[in-house]
């Protein structure tokens, strides 16, 4: 019996797909899994797992949180970057924040459950916390001293033009005191929960403020990575934390700095990427060399 052409064509397609599925979908990946078990390669193929004190504590490539059960930083450890993966550094739910560069207005709802922070407020809050933890100035441009985004909603008589009629500091909920008392002669009000000042016609106006152009807290300390699993921090963020770790452990600063250097990966071939400090490996080395006080 001769099949109709269209059917014969689809049967050929099905046979081709099955052949390729076996070859490319089973033989090829499984052969590579087998190769990955060769000595020398198996450690990496299995996820670069690392031990400390006889148990596996993680992977050299995957960052982790160094926080206590309540989520507070454990000061004797170098801290990782902020993470948007699950509750932080969760490899089963990797994610970036996906918040945009102009995400500057918080949602302050009457129900705190429905409130959410803009990226700017997250950055300001982190900067303040990291500053406090390490005893440096945590101020940044476009941030208030209480660690939220310094953003005003400016209402004008004719929408976008005309004299200013009303100004609200949108990220500071009453009873907070606005970061500036007045804007172009108009007194600044704190925000009321549940109000949407942008929808009401307020023009979003971030205020630069007088924070230093180069904040003491480095950029990677206040931003979430793309993966949420970044195993590294910048050498600058590591340096910022050295004094705290030295104090907590009663260690010699020079010895701690030496460990930081040993766990810093430079640029690949001198020009690829940027240097980074592997936080987990550094902390394991610290534990080995200096007992916590």
């Amino acid at each position, binding site marked *: 019996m001769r099949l109709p052409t269209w059917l014969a064509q689809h049967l050929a397609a099905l046979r081709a797909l099955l052949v390729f599925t076996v070859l490319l979908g089973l033989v090829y990946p499984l052969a590579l899994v087998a190769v990955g078990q060769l000595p020398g390669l198996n450690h990496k193929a299995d996820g670069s797992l690392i031990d400390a004190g006889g148990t596996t504590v993680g992977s050299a490539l995957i960052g982790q949180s160094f926080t206590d059960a309540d989520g507070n930083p454990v000061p004797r450890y170098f801290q990782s970057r902020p993470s948007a993966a699950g509750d932080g550094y969760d490899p089963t739910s990797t994610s970036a924040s*996906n918040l945009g560069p102009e*995400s500057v207005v918080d949602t302050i709802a009457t129900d705190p459950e429905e409130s959410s922070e803009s990226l700017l407020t997250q950055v300001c809050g982190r900067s303040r916390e990291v500053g406090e933890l390490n005893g440096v100035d945590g101020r940044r441009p476009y*941030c208030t001293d209480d660690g939220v*985004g310094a953003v005003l909603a400016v209402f004008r008589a004719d929408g976008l033009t005309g004299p200013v009629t009303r100004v609200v500091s949108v990220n500071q909920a009453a009873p907070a005191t606005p970061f500036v008392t007045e804007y172009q002669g108009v007194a600044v009000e704190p925000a009321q929960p549940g109000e949407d000042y942008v929808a009401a016609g307020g023009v979003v106006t971030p205020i630069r403020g007088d924070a230093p152009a180069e904040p003491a807290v480095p950029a990677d300390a206040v931003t979430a990575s793309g*993966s949420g699993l970044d195993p590294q921090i910048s050498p600058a963020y590591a340096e910022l934390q050295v004094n705290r770790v030295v104090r907590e452990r009663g260690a010699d600063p020079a010895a701690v700095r030496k460990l930081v250097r040993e766990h810093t990966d430079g640029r690949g071939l001198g020009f690829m990427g940027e240097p980074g400090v592997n936080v987990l490996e550094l902390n394991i080395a610290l534990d080995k060399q200096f007992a916590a006080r």
Partner: protein
Amino acid sequence: MTMTTAGVIFVLTLMAALVAVYKPFGDYMFRAVSGTRQSRVERGIFRLVGVNPAAEQTWGVYARSVLAFSAVSILFLYLFQRVQNHLWLSLGFDPVVPHGAWNTAVSFVTNTNWQSYSGESTMGHLVQMAGLAVQNFVSAAVGIAVAVALVRGFARSRTGQLGNFWVDLTRITLRILLPIAVLGALALMLGGVVQNLSAGTDVTTLTGGSQTITGGPVASQEVIKELGTNGGGFYNVNSAHPFENPTTWTNWLQIFLIFLIPFSMPRVFGRMVGQNRQGYAIAAVMGILAFASVVITNIFELTGHGTVPQAVGAALEGKEVRFDVSNSATFAAATTLTSTGAVNSFHDSFTPLGGMMTMVNMMLGEVAPGGTGSGLYGLLILAVITVFVAGLMVGRTPEYLGKKIGSREIKFASLYFLITPILVLVGTAAAFATGNNSTALNVGPHGLSEVLYAFTSASNNNGSAFGGITVNTTWWDTALGLCMLFGRFLPIIFVLALAGSLARQAPTPASEGTLPTHRPLFIGMVVGVTVVLVALTFLPALALGPLAEGL
């Protein structure tokens, strides 16, 4: 050395490597697609599939073979995901929901690799390696096959035959994709990319927390994700994940693999039409557009405009320490200039104008250098349009490579060009008209950018995401699935129809009046036509989104 200097050297070394492999690798691909001696494995495959490798096909049969193979692939991949809970290595995951399975099946078969799911919490290892990764290979091979068929249309005359799809598919997969994939996977494994079948290792972290270190056959899928300009990550965060892209040099290698085939295809073209200089001209157009875009994206990202980047001091949100701003920007440009769509940083958090560049790159129509095969055929269509426009301006008969560009040819070329703008703009409008834009995380201009990006990415078969938008709803899965489907196969049909029409023509000998298509003048004109067509089509939409936000 500053980050800018290092970033410049990074780009220059990539360019040098691509220039170095252009000839040898292009020649290798030429031999793979034009040879007639079949290896023993290939003969075995032809017997199993039941095709006669010596029999050639007309454009209609070739197109129907492409469509039959893709239709069967979509159905197979759909069913595979729907029954994954009954299969080996399912990791205990439920079957993928119907609209998600449809979207993912279309996405991988069309070489888009848009992902409305999160890899580590949705797909078992078997679906990933025997379903998704197989399509990473064959969808890339389909693109190259269609490009080769188009070039045969230019190279041949007075014939209806364009080659045999099954032979092209097999030889491209076995001789081009698979060997490089094996080598690349081994290199990635040396860098730390995982390759195992583990369901995950539970560990207690240094401070007593718990963490699950995920596993999977990642390296084998990662390499073809880049080489085949697919872009679908094994994990949700794609090439930002340390298990997919662990080091600064694997990042370089991944960008190189992304560009390798698309930038070498013009050599295949030049060899096949018997004039290498025609290949150089096409490669030059691709190179000029790509270089300009990489530089501009880097400048926007390194300058770091935008309120949050200013507050932070750098556009570092959504970027890894090891890649930092410059290498992330270069990757972002590479992945959107080709139809890859893999990401090593999150475009949603880029500066407004840096984010816009990733969109503009896709809107160029994925031709600089575009996807595997699809980049070449897309650019040849633009070359045809350029020849036609130039002919109108100076009153010459439009000819390209000895073929007359008549009304039939220009109709196919125009139809090809019109499809993606229609899909992008109608799709974006439909999302707003039906209120489905409300799943975007951001409002205002950035919310428009998120919707526009999604449709641009799907219709151009790119697959990268701006993120910040929930797309795993029935409406989004369906709408974007249709955009991917039409955005892939309608152009392929028009390309093959054009190829058939060109192959039938008798060659026209070059005369005084023929526009030389290998000179800088022509290169400049193709670049101009590409940019002007994009500007006219998309500028209004860009003005309301990223431009409104960034200026």
